[in-house]
């Protein structure tokens, strides 16, 4: 994005460019380095088991990764989230579509979706355990419930954004309803669904991990709880670090996919 903006001719000062500034990633890694340094100093000052330093945690991260435990547990969490997210899409797409087309249905669904979207994560986690017991079902259902409002509300926004003029164009050229859904509605809502997916995924992941803390036999949340029970603070932090890294990677992946999907938004070169 930023390269596109920079490449545009600026009015008035046709030759001069903005002074070269440090790239974004350099600045944000700088922030990371500062934070890690601060942590290292703090842990050196405290000098206690409850405050392991960055190196110690890094060691645990490497151990966990090399032993394969990281892969196993992340895979287990991600499979549950994806399953939940699949359910959320199955429910959210038609609900959102209906809300976008009908004012009545929009009012009808707005309250339930609002409630679903605002129930505290902890409540979901506890209810997941009470209703489904220890196992995979609880986390799957919980991540589906958390993601549904994000998907539905964004799909509805996308459907509302469809230009009536384009629909009339389709009609004038005798396009079938199936063609209109495929070539007009779906592309129009994709951008909105994408926003829903990015936020919904982050939310679903957090609540899912919380659910695993209470009722699971594996997964990242479960590993964090086990480390807590065994009083392994370094392990807890290591799992948390891995959790954050995984979220950043997924976020980056989605962003890359987004720029590929939305190539049509490129301005005049």
């Amino acid at each position: 994005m930023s390269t596109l903006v920079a490449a545009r001719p600026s009015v008035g000062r046709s030759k001069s460019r903005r002074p070269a500034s440090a790239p974004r990633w350099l600045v944000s890694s700088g922030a990371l380095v500062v934070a890690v340094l601060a942590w290292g100093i703090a842990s050196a000052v405290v000098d206690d088991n409850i405050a392991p330093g960055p190196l110690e945690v890094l060691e645990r991260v490497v151990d966990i990764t090399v032993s394969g435990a990281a892969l196993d547990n992340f895979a287990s969490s991600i499979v549950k989230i994806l399953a939940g997210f699949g359910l959320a899409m199955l429910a959210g797409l038609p609900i959102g579509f209906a809300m976008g087309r009908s004012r009545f249905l929009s009012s009808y669904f707005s309250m339930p979706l609002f409630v679903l979207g605002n129930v505290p994560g902890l409540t979901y986690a506890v209810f997941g355990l009470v209703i489904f017991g220890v196992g995979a079902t609880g986390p799957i259902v919980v991540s589906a419930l958390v993601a549904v409002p994000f998907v539905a509300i964004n799909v509805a926004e996308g459907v509302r954004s469809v230009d009536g003029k384009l629909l009339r164009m389709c009609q004038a050229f005798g396009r079938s309803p199936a063609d209109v859904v495929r070539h007009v509605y779906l592309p129009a809502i994709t951008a909105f669904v994408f926003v829903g997916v990015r936020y919904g995924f982050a939310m679903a992941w957090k609540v899912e991990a919380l659910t695993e803390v209470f009722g699971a036999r594996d997964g990242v949340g479960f590993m964090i709880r086990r480390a807590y029970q065994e009083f392994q603070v370094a392990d807890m932090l290591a799992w948390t670090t891995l959790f954050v890294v995984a979220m950043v990677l997924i976020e980056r992946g989605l962003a890359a996919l987004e720029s590929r999907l939305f190539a049509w938004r490129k301005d005049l070169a």
Partner: protein
Amino acid sequence: MASIDISGLVKDYHDRAGNRTRVLDGIDLSITGETFVSIVGPSGSGKTTLLNIVSGIESHTAGNVSLRAGDRDARVGYVFQDPRLLPWRTVDQNLSFVQHDRDGWAERAQHYLDLVGLGHLGDRFPAQLSGGQQQRVGIARAFSVEPDILLMDEPFSHLDAMTSRTLREHLERIWLESRRTVMFVTHDVTEAVQLSDRIVVLAPGGHVHETIEVDLPRPRRASDPAVAVLQAEVLARFEVLEARAAAARAEVPA
């Protein structure tokens, strides 16, 4: 051979309070064969509404509209006032999208894109084209379905004078090469005289005020004296009508 037959066409709009506005009031119009017909008329006289009803986008209150091509229903191509391209599809994909007939569509699309001078831009997205180029894609799209009937609603009115003159020339050239039954809506009497075989003047209130046959050789140049004379004459008549429309509007309390 294609034909458009409109008889006793009436269109009412109803507002929320249930008040009725009659926009078209008994239109009779028959267009047969490879005829280029322009619909001119003051703003609000129902030109777009007429075109939308003919294309089937809008319903009508009474009367009959039939589009025929031989013994089957006619195929319609529509050029709108704005390009109306799918922003998420390339130029080629936009043309592909409207095809009824998948056979040989790529050659047809290429052919008409070449005719509007955009043969090399098939891979671009609409956002990567200028306004005039987008409008030309809209024209190529309408021709590429090989329509029996071509409807155009002020296709050049959003463009600057030079672009619209070039596109007018493009349009006449394409039409001469692949003649169709055309209904062309415009504000611009000069444009109507240059392009049409017949000019139908709509009056405010939505009825046909008069019909003018234009019997001049083609291709026509705006600089041709015969064209200029007819343009001046039609313009004079049109101005009378517009003045009357303005007076009628002034009588209605705001």
